[in-house]
């Protein structure tokens, strides 16, 4: 239990997927201009990552490993994730439109979000158990969400400031992200 807690803290803060591992930057910059979008995206990432983490772990453990075709990881994972996301999107759109409006519209963004794929690969690489894989997936996603929401808060203010023209938008967004990464170094060594 204690180990899991350490894992959670480390995944959320110390090895934050965005700020320390550089994964998932495109949607990070894209969806952080507004707080509502950021929250929706954060939720969607958590949702998808947990599912993807589970399903890729299963694929790896019960299909790739027994057949000794681990080198097919990339192809099979991405295909499974893409299909899963698309399926969930269609499902939500039809069955739970309310949820779709809040969260589902972010799903297509996630297919090609390297955070999802990256976390799945990390899970395999670190040889986590199924439970650990689920927990890390969730924590990484939560870390992503946390960074996204905090970033959106700062960015909403920056959008209103008189940022010099060439720096506007993505450029200042990246620099802010850099400073956020800097502040996240606070947690270094805490676990």
């Amino acid at each position, binding site marked *: 239990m204690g180990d899991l807690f350490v894992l959670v803290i480390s995944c959320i803060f110390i090895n934050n997927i965005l700020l320390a591992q550089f994964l998932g930057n*495109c*949607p990070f*910059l*894209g*969806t952080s*201009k507004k707080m509502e*979008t950021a929250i*929706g*995206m954060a939720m*969607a990432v958590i949702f998808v990552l947990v599912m993807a983490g589970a399903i890729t772990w299963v*694929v790896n453990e019960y*299909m*790739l490993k027994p*057949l*000794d*075709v681990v080198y*097919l990881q990339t*192809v*099979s994972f991405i*295909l*499974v994730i*893409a*299909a899963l996301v*698309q*399926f969930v999107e*269609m*499902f939500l*759109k*039809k*069955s739970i439109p309310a949820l779709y409006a809040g969260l589902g*519209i*972010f*799903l*297509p*963004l996630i*297919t*090609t979000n390297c955070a999802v794929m990256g976390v799945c690969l990390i899970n395999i690489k670190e040889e986590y158990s199924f439970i650990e894989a689920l927990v890390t997936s969730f924590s990484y996603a939560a870390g992503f969400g946390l960074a996204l929401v905090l970033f959106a808060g700062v960015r909403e203010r920056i959008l209103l400031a008189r940022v010099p*023209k060439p720096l506007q938008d993505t450029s200042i967004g990246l620099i802010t992200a850099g400073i956020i990464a800097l502040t996240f170094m606070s947690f270094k060594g805490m676990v």
Partner: protein
Amino acid sequence: MISALLLMLGIGAVCGIVLSLASKIFYVYEDPRIAQVENCLAGANCGGCGYAGCSAAAAAIVSGKEPASLCIVSGKDGVESIAKVMGVEVGNAEAPLSYNMCEGGFRAADKYHYMGVSSCKAMAVVFGGKRVCGVGCIGLGDCVKACQFGAVSIGPKGHPVVDEEKCVGCGACQKACPKNIIEVKTLSERIMKFNQKYDPLAPCAQTCPAEINIPRYINQLREGKYKEAVQTIRLRNPLPLACGRVCPHPCETECRRGVEDEPVSINQLKRFVADYEMNSGSRIPIKCAPDTGKKIAVVGGGPSGLSCAFFLRRIGHQVDIFEAMPKLGGMLRYGIPEYRLPKKVLDWEIQGILDLGIKSFCHVKFGVDFGLGSLMAAGYNAVFLGVGAWEDFSLGIEGENLDGCFTGINFLQRISGGEKIKLGRTAAVVGGGNTAVDCARTLLRLGLDKVYMVYRRTRKEMPANEVEIVASEHEGIEFVFLAAPTRVVGDDKNKVTHLEYLKMQLGEPDKSGRRRPEPIEGSETLLAVDMVISAIGQSPDASFKNQDPQHRMKELELTKWNTIDNNPATHQASIPYIFTAGDAATGPSLVVEAIGGGRRAARSIDLFLKGEAVEPVKDSLQKKRIHESIFTKVDGIKKTARAKQPELHVNERLDSFIEVDLVLPEADAHKEAERCLNCCRICYNPDIVFPMAKKAG
């Protein structure tokens, strides 16, 4: 190897089956355009646009929240194909561009020192802004701040300058400007823009019936940009060559320079640039909007018809012109003599209009050769009636039908048509309008010994253009004022010998302030002439109404002057799909009125075809003036003489129909353009420094 193959086969099959089943089971309807637009997008789902994935972005584009250029990955082709998907509405595919009305020149003085929020909007609500000039640019640059693309900057003269390369037509600058100085419009919208009372307009531009932006083209001329000047004129007037010759230029009467000095010779400048184009040997290309697939029939190829057809064509409609006479041009061709507007010039100009892709059918008379029914059957969506006013008023006196009596327009038309008419030696032309003068001067050129002009009132009241009157005086026409014809006297062969008229005197001024002529009893006088031409006015020939078998035609209402009854603001007639302008609608009037009317009718037709309410232009400035633009004095003007119209020597011109008025030499044109005060391009201090202090103190 085999296991890998099988595994992937399995995964692929499962994914494929699940997805295809899901797409059937969980099918939800959405706007098919969303899928189409999404196909045009990059599909990378990168989120770079700020939307959650390409389908969200597509939905935003379809709902109109975002421009077609939203996606940062798909290139120009993508944008174009999206625009195509979205371009179901007319004009959407046309690129809108920003354009500022108030430009260049010096700034108006401030009425106070402003301290506060540095934004035009904020300043505009404080006493209308600190500038003394109330209509122009404030200059704090809200538009510059609003532009996301760096396309707007404050130019060296303190006004916004738009870089057309960078402008994407988003409209942010327009929203930011509190004074409507800067607008984002497509070419169509710009062509169909009518003066409104909050536009910064110089008095000349307010006066021009065609609403030409006069100061702009004068400035372009001054800068040597003749082509641009012609384009500026063509935005409002398709016939600069003709207008440059025959327009009575009401604009010049309002010219602000005229308050202290002689007005600028605006019309000659127009003619200069128009002639420049004609003589340059190549036509300036005229841009048209993409085709809309709508078809309009223009009946009558005179100035109003040509104008209406020209503008309809430029905004993308298909136009056919039907003309009763053998050639297009209407009154310009048949009513205005060769020495004022050479046919060669007119042909060149009309050809330019037809080159836009307008078909013309001549020698077909409305109501005789074709009618409303046949037009409708041919699939025209609307009809423009610009049949002009070709029916001369009769004098209503005895002897009017004698041999040697003619009516004005009929006479001019026959001469223009090349008909040989049996002429006399002396002639009396009855009337004081331009037609009368034209008849008189034509007669002189036809070799008559003596031409009299008989007019009921005095020279002061003559409606003909002053220059024309002066020219005819020079050419030796004798004026008989205060004379009311009472009888044409003929000999036994029914040939005209004399015109009898009654002398008149001016009575007490009436309500309108004019002194009405009153006949002097018993003052009958005989004038020995062998030709009498009556040119006392015309009305439209409305015979088509009864000749047309289409029963709907009965619904077309006429006024008591036989003009087609219409809404003067929208030019829509009593049958909704019929529009009319020009002399047919107003009775005999100026060419430039007809041109302006044609454009207004084109706007209404466009609205009608789009299914929108045909409503007048909001806050229109037609024939009104912006209160504060009218000055009673203009300080600091150094008087300089107005450029003189070069003209043919009298001796030369009497023997021929060679054009009398000549074009200004380039140097003179520039000199004349320099005389322009740049009203509304510069902010002026009117004589009122600030209203409250005027006389109260």
